[in-house]
C-alpha cells in the first residue's frame, strides 16, 4: 500500500514534467476527457494486440527452410463477419457517445452571458455587454455560462481554449458561437487555430477566470462611459435607422421593438429565427431575406460600419422591447 502510494507520488511528479492533458477548467472538459481516455485505451489495446499477434506468428511460424511448405488454411466466413461486425458495433457506440456530447455542447444555455469577439490579423478584440473592451485578454466569472459570439474582419480565424476543450472557426461575414462555463479560477491561454497569415502563431491571449464578485468589480471599474447598446443606440440614430424602424407609423417598415428572439415570415414563405446572424444579414444585405408583407427596400450598410459597430447595433436592437417579449409569452 505504502509502495503504491510512493509510486503514485512519483507518477504525479512525472505528470508535472510530462502532463498528458491540458488543464480541465470547464464543465465539459471532464466529459471530453473521459471519451478521450476510453479511445486511448481502445487504441492502445488494439495496437498492442495486433503487434503481439504479429510477433507471435512471426516467431512461431518463421521460415525454417527455404523449401518448407506451409499448412493449408481456409478462409473462415464467421471469422470475417466477426471482425466486420464487432468493430462496427464499437464504432456505433463511440459515435453515439461523441455525438450526444457534441450536440449537447453545441447549444448554449438560455441564461448565458454574451461576450462578443472580433478577430483580425493578428489580434483578438473582445467586448462585454456593458461596453468594456479588452484586447487579447478575456475576463470571465467562475461558474457562469458564457456565450461568445464571434466574427472576423478579414480572413478565417479560430478561437480555441484548450483548457475548456472548445474551438470554433471565426468567419468573415458571419457569426459563429461557442459557449463554456469555467470551473477553475486562474489564467488559461486561448489561441488562433486556423492559419491566418504571418503572425498566426502570435495571435493568442489569456482567459482570466475570476470569482463572480471580483469579476463584477473588474467589469464596473473597466466600464466605459457607454454600454454597447447605448453606442448602438447612437449609431441607430446617426445612420438614420430610427426614422423608418421606430418613428414611422405608416406601417411600411418593420418595427423592431421586441423583434429579437422571435420568428418572422419571409417573402418566400419560409420562417426564420431572428438571432444575431439574422439581424446582421438584415443590416449588411437587407434584400437577401426580404420579409413578407413589406415592399419597401432598404439600403445596404455594407462597408459603412465595421464589425464592432455592427455588434453595437445588434446589442441595441436586442434591448428594444425586451419587456414585450415577456408579454407575448404569457
Amino acid at each position, binding site marked *: 500500500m505504502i509502495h503504491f502510494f510512493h509510486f503514485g507520488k512519483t507518477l504525479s511528479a512525472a505528470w508535472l514534467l510530462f502532463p498528458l492533458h491540458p488543464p480541465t477548467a470547464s464543465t465539459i472538459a471532464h466529459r471530453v476527457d473521459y471519451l478521450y481516455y476510453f479511445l486511448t485505451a481502445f487504441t492502445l489495446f488494439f495496437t498492442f494486440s495486433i503487434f503481439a499477434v504479429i510477433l507471435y506468428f512471426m516467431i512461431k511460424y518463421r521460415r525454417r527452410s527455404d523449401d518448407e511448405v506451409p499448412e493449408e488454411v481456409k478462409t473462415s466466413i464467421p471469422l470475417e463477419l466477426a471482425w466486420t461486425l464487432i468493430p462496427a458495433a464499437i464504432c456505433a457506440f463511440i459515435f453515439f457517445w461523441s455525438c450526444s456530447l457534441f450536440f449537447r455542447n453545441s447549444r448554449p444555455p438560455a441564461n448565458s452571458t454574451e461576450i462578443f469577439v472580433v478577430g483580425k490579423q493578428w489580434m483578438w478584440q473582445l467586448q462585454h455587454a456593458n461596453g468594456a473592451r479588452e484586447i487579447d485578454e478575456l475576463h470571465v466569472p467562475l461558474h457562469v455560462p458564457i456565450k461568445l459570439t464571434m466574427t472576423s474582419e478579414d480572413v478565417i480565424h479560430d478561437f480555441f481554449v484548450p483548457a475548456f476543450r472548445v474551438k470554433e472557426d471565426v468567419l468573415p461575414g458571419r457569426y459563429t458561437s461557442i459557449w463554456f462555463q469555467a470551473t477553475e479560477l486562474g489564467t488559461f491561454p486561448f489561441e488562433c487555430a486556423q492559419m491566418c497569415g504571418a503572425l498566426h502563431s502570435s495571435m493568442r491571449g489569456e482567459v482570466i477566470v475570476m470569482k463572480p464578485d471580483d469579476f463584477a468589480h473588474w467589469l464596473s471599474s473597466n466600464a466605459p462611459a457607454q454600454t454597447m447598446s447605448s453606442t448602438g443606440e447612437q449609431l441607430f440614430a446617426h445612420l438614420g435607422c430610427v426614422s423608418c424602424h421606430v418613428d414611422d407609423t405608416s406601417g411600411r417598415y418593420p418595427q423592431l421593438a421586441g423583434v429579437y428572439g422571435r420568428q418572422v415570415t419571409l417573402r*418566400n414563405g419560409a420562417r426564420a429565427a431572428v438571432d444575431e446572424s439574422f439581424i446582421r444579414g438584415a443590416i449588411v*444585405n437587407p*434584400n*437577401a431575406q*426580404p420579409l413578407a408583407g413589406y415592399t419597401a*427596400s432598404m439600403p445596404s450598410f455594407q462597408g459603412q460600419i465595421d464589425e464592432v459597430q455592427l455588434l453595437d447595433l445588434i446589442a441595441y436592437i436586442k434591448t428594444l422591447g425586451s419587456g414585450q417579449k415577456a408579454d407575448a409569452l404569457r
Partner: protein
Amino acid sequence: MSESAVTQAGRPVLEQHFADLPAQEEARKLGMWIFLITEILFFGGLFATYTIYRELYLPGFIQGSHLLEVKWGAINTAVLIVSSLTMALAIRSAQVGKRKSAIIGLLGITAILGVVFLCIKFILEWRTDYLHHLVPGINFDYAGPHASHVQLFFLFYFFMTGLHALHVMIGIGVVLALSYLTWRGRFSPHYYSPLEVTGLYWHFVDIVWIFLFPLLYLIGGR
C-alpha cells in the same frame, strides 16, 4: 485479318501492345467514356456551387437571368443539336464506307456550326454584356436591388459558358484535324475509332450546353 484491317493508307493502325483491332477500339472508347466522367465532375464543381448560390439567392439569380436573351440561348442550343446530328452522321458514313467527300462534308458542317455557336456566344452575347457592364471583376456596374447576387449570377454565367466555349474550341480543332486525316484516307469501315471517340466528346459538350441553357437562361418565369 486482312491486310487492309491492319494498315490504312500504308500506316499500321494496330498498336503493337494490343492483341487485335477490336480490343484497341474498345479500349479507346472506354478511355473516352472515363475522360467524360472526369469532365462531368470538372463541370460538376461549378454546378454544385451554382446550385447552392442559386438556392440561397434566387431573386438575384432570376434578375440576372432575365438580363440574358433567351433567343440567343435557344438558337445556340439548336445549333449544337444540329452539329451533334451531323457529327453522328459523319461517323455513320465512315462506318458504312461512304465516299471521303461525304465524311469530310459532314465534319466540315459540324465544325462550322461550332464556329457559329462561338460567334453567337462571344460577339452577340458576351460583347453586349460587356457593353452593359455585366462582367464581374472586369466591368461590372449594376444598380438594381440585388446587385451583389446578380454579380454572383454573372460570375457563374461567364465561368460556365466560358469553360464550355473552351471545350467547343477544342472540339472544333479536333474535328478539323480529323477531316484532314479523312482526306488522307486514314479511316475505313475497319478503322474509324478516332472519329468515334471524338463524336462522344462532341456529344458530351452538347449535353453540357443542354443543361446550361435552362440553368442560366430560363430561371423563373419570364
